[in-house]
């Protein structure tokens, strides 16, 4: 055992047990102070794998849509005499929601859900990896961008900074949140801690004192967030009445984001992703309400609807926006699926949203109207939507820094506030 003691003496571990928590850790005890003023919150959802926007928000008045997709189209709302649950849910006479998104219809009817169609990234890539990277960096076509749009979008903070201003649900920090401003990844709120208390102190000291710049910074952010979230972990979370989060990872993520928001710990932006949208084969089952896409949308719609109900009045402060790296081919492929395409649809949900409306110019689906004669054309740059939210919702008006090289033009999705 001698050698181990030698090792201890010689190492930074000798600091362990020195006693008081480091000063930065004490300073980070933010939540126990006076509660912060309620901040506006932006929640971003990434549908990884390129969701099929044309089957999610269906242009049911387009004859061409049904010609391009003879076996996988979602039937017109009018076709729904016998099997209503298998037809599109009409929104405005032209577009309809996929039937599995029925839980979102009340939010739409209440005017709190907006849809932007034919939106996305102008970059022509059909690579999942590149397109996700571009959408998360916020700089389509530019690979050298080191940080993500959400990190840059964090407003300059006045006074104390919550260590959980920016939270991503998951085991890795998404590209969108990476950058110089602190952002934390949380896999599971209940387990966000070092379980052994003595070790927790030892680790906190080690990471505070290390000369390793990257690990030191990440460690300090982590322990600040851990101490802040400790109070939340002690209570069992009960979603508000009527809010039923679906079982599974995405529902868990949204439930925990709602929990964080309601706990008033200073969250200003949150991120969650949901995979499984890359349906090259058998996208649709025997009926529109069956099969892979329907299963993903059932989970997706229920989770968003539960989030809406759970937050209730608090949704006044929240805007949730969804995106996916690109859309899918307008025409179905040879395997009752779709291949990688171009423009897609985005959802924006929140108390301050001017919803009940499909935004964006519809480009049409005729051959000459399609992008590269195969995909839905793009009429709204995703940065227009995100820019409006960053400016109007988060109050960060310096959009040229958030989306360098691009001047987002707001579409009036946010009610009352002009970005």
């Amino acid at each position, binding site marked *: *055992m*001698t*050698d*181990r003691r*030698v*090792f*201890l003496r*010689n*190492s*930074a*571990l000798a600091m362990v047990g020195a006693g008081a928590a480091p000063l930065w850790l004490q300073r980070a005890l933010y939540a126990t102070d006076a509660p912060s003023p309620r901040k506006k919150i932006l929640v971003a959802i990434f549908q990884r*794998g390129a969701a099929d926007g044309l089957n999610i928000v269906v242009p049911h008045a387009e004859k061409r849509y049904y010609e391009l997709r003879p076996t996988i189209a979602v039937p017109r709302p009018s076709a729904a005499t016998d099997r209503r649950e298998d037809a599109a849910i009409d929104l405005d006479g032209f577009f309809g929601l996929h039937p599995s998104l029925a839980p979102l219809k009340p939010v739409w009817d209440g005017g709190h859900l907006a849809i932007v169609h034919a939106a996305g990234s102008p970059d*022509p*890539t*059909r*690579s*999942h*990896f*590149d397109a996700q990277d571009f959408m998360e960096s916020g700089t389509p076509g530019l690979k050298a961008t080191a*940080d993500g749009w959400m990190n840059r979008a964090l407003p300059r903070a006045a006074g104390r900074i919550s260590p959980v201003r920016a939270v991503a649900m*998951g*085991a*890795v*920090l998404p590209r969108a949140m*990476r950058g110089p401003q602190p952002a*934390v*990844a*949380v*896999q599971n709120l209940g387990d*966000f*801690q*070092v*379980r*052994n208390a*003595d*070790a*927790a102190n*030892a*680790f906190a000291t*080690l*990471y505070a004192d*290390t000369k*390793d*710049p*990257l*690990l030191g910074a*990440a*460690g300090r952010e*982590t322990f600040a*967030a*851990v101490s802040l979230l400790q109070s939340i972990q002690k209570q069992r979370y009960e979603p508000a009445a009527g809010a039923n989060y679906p079982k599974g990872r995405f529902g868990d993520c949204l439930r925990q984001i709602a929990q964080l928001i309601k706990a008033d710990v200073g969250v200003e932006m949150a991120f969650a992703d949901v*995979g*499984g949208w890359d349906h*090259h*084969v058998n996208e649709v089952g025997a009926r529109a309400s069956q099969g892979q896409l329907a299963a993903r949308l059932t989970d997706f719609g229920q989770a968003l609807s539960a989030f809406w109900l759970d937050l209730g009045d608090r949704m006044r402060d929240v805007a949730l926006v969804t995106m996916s790296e690109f859309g899918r081919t307008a025409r179905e*492929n*040879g*395997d009752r*699926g779709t*291949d990688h395409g171009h423009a897609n649809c985005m959802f924006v949900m929140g108390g301050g949203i001017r919803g009940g409306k499909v935004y964006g110019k519809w480009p049409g689906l005729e051959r000459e109207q399609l992008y590269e004669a195969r995909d839905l054309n793009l009429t709204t740059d995703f940065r227009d939507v995100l820019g409006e939210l960053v400016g109007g919702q988060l109050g960060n008006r310096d959009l040229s820094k958030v989306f360098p090289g691009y001047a987002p033009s707001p579409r009036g999705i946010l009610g009352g506030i002009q970005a």
Partner: protein
Amino acid sequence: MQRNKPILAAFVALSMCLLTGISAYGKKKSTEPSAQFRQPLSGEEKVQHALSRLTFGPRPGDVQYVKKLGLKKWIDLQLHPERIPENPLLETKLRPLDSLHMSTAQLIRNYPSPQIVRAMVAGELPFPDDPDKRMMIHRLVERFQGKTGQDGEAAAMPDLAALLDASQLRAFRTGTPQQKLALFTALPHDRQDQVLTAMGQGMRMQLYAAAPQALRRRIQSAAGPQAMVAQDLLEAKLDRAVYSNRQLQEVLADFWYNHFNVFLEKGPDHYLVTAYERDAIRPHVLGKFEDLLRATAQSPAMLFYLDNWESVGAQSPAGKRRQRGLNENYGRELLELHTLGVDGGYTQKDVTEVARCFTGWTIRQPQRAAEFEFNPRMHDEGEKTVLGVRIPAGGGIGDGFKVLHLVAHHPSTARFISRQLAMRFVADDPPASLLDRMSATFLKKDGDLRAVLKTMFDSPEFWSCGAYRSKMKSPLEMVASSVRALNADVDFTFGLNNQLVQLGQPLYRKAEPTGYSNSGQEWLNSAGLLARMNFSMALANNKVPGVKVENVNPTDGVALGSPDFQRK
């Protein structure tokens, strides 16, 4: 107690190298990166560095061993794993994992899914030859028939209380694992299987931990035989990472599987990954890139994962009859992820043309035997042009081989593969000078991967401050290096595999064709750091099921979770 000191204390050794990686977000760059890659390492650092990059982390005694043998000679040996006698302990651990040696057809028969069991009952498929496995399947059949008898109700699981008397039941619930095992083995063989089926997962795990090897296989298959296939894969992967003497070969097997990633959970891929890793990946990791590429392209695992098996020429007989058509998925990922890289100079048109070339590359009986097959009735026989090269009409299966040959020798591929290797072995952002030399070797030596590695290991950039301790360990590297550093004994690996899920790197379960990033920065975040700290403490305190550390010491846990140990 010599064991920990050289491993863990090494990280507080003074170094002339400054820690790098500050420049990540365009903040102050204290030193030019190129200068960092010119600053050489001390002799001591070189040994540490080589061990941290060519292995899954040093074990006690490794530093001394390499010094004694000579660094050059040790690297040369690692590049020729066939000259290194394998660790007998590893061979003992791998021996019971019989699924690893089976053909796909054998796997499907011996570890059947419910559909296959049904086919056996219907007489469409023979039962397994092995009496134990046959017995197990007969039991499944009984359950299956019980299930269908009840009008589609949930399976009638036997109740433990109906199988054991009150005192047995009490002992089973509250006894020590050894008592449980004694009680269990005293039961008649027949009753044992029923009890296994009736047990909850937790109780089964306890029994498993105490059980001898032969019984373990039975306990595992009680939860469903098809799960064994994945369990054997996971078991073998971690056993090899921890115990193999041919460490570089195992690092490379991990690298190349990840490069040609296949997701284990995509339908039949559950049964296809075993042969894929064994026959397509592992034999070629130090061979020619084109051989590796061809093996992956013709593997049922990849054909299924990237949908090529269903891709049909629109004008082919099958396309006309079945109204099926082209699927671009494989064609695109072949160019973007496997060979040229996304900036490798191809167009959407090239993707479509490549997909046309591979029509007819399909799988015979994907659910039963799953063998590669070229089906001319699905093939697009027209002329194609790929990357400016004309591929004449009527080429049949040769179209695909032409494409593979073309991209395997393309300068963009040489560059892309060199960059991926250098990201794994040298630095997250490897210097261009190194990539130039590696690419040149790749092109000159016909894609000889051993030669490319040799160029990398001979380069001054590899032995520089820019590389030294610049990378963050991946979760797999973190877990394996911790076990190795403590010289822990791994009895079974599902405890470690669960930890890998917590750390964000479930093995064989990366759904996207990109695989996991080769950049260490990917893993730097709060959730991951906490998971690493918790894993470290659990491991050092003998709280990871299946792993035993001899002398429990919490300070080891703190060392393993420290910032230093996250670097390699």
